[in-house]
C-alpha cells in the first residue's frame, strides 16, 4: 500500500435528503467514484445526508460532484424500478429456472407413484375411447329416432 499523498483540492459538500437518495444509492454512487475522489458520508440529522467529496490529483472536485449526483440519481431510480417490478422479475426468473431443469430424470421417474390404483386413474376422462364416449349418445339418439 502506498503512503497517503498530500491532498491540495478543496472539498465539495452536498446535502441530500435520504428520502430521495437512499443510503444504498449514495454508497453505490460513492463506490463508483472511489478511484477519482475521496468520499465521506455522514448523517448529521435524521433523514438528511451530507456528502463530502475531495478530488484526487488529476480530477476537479466540482466535476466529481456532478458525476456523483448523476450516479446517485441513476442508482436511486434503478432501485425504485427494481422495487416496483420485483414480483414480475421473480416470476420470470422462477419460470426460467424451472424451464431450464429439463425433462424428468431417472430418479424422478422412479419416484413417481405407479401403483395399480393410481396407474388407471382418469379423473378427466381423457383415456376413454371414441367408441365408449359417443356410443351412448348415438344409441340414445337411435332410440329417440325409433320411437313413434
Amino acid at each position, binding site marked *: *500500500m502506498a*503512503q*497517503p*499523498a*498530500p*491532498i491540495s483540492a478543496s472539498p465539495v459538500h452536498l446535502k441530500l435528503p*435520504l428520502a430521495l437518495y437512499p*443510503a*444504498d444509492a*449514495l*454508497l*453505490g*454512487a*460513492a*463506490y*463508483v467514484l*472511489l478511484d477519482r475522489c*475521496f*468520499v*465521506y*458520508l*455522514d*448523517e448529521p440529522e435524521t433523514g438528511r*445526508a451530507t456528502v463530502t467529496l*475531495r478530488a484526487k490529483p488529476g480530477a476537479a472536485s466540482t466535476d466529481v460532484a456532478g458525476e456523483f449526483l448523476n*450516479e446517485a440519481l*441513476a*442508482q436511486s431510480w434503478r432501485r425504485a424500478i427494481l422495487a416496483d417490478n420485483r414480483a414480475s422479475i421473480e416470476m420470470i426468473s422462477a419460470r426460467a429456472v424451472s424451464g431450464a431443469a429439463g425433462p424428468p430424470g431417472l430418479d424422478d421417474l422412479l419416484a413417481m407413484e405407479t401403483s395399480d390404483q393410481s396407474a388407471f386413474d382418469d379423473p378427466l376422462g381423457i383415456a376413454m375411447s371414441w367408441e365408449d364416449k359417443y356410443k351412448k349418445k348415438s344409441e340414445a339418439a337411435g332410440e329417440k329416432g325409433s320411437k313413434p
Partner: protein
Amino acid sequence: MIERRFRPTFYAAAAVDAAAAVYAPYGTIEVDHAGPAVRVTANAGIDELALADELANYVLGATVEARGADAERPA
C-alpha cells in the same frame, strides 16, 4: 487529530476495524465503537488529512463489498 464519524446508516463496523488495521502503520487510529467515531493522528511526515481520507475511502469500499451491493454500473 482528525475525527470521522462512520454512522451505521452508511458504514459497517467490521469495515471500520479493517481500515484501522490497514492504516495503523501510518499513524494512531483510535476506534470508538460507541460513537461510532474514528480519531486519526498521523505519524510525522504523513499528511493527516490524506490519511483520514484514505481511511474513509477504505471503509466505504469495504462496506460496499461486504454488502455485495450492485454498486458498479455495467458499462
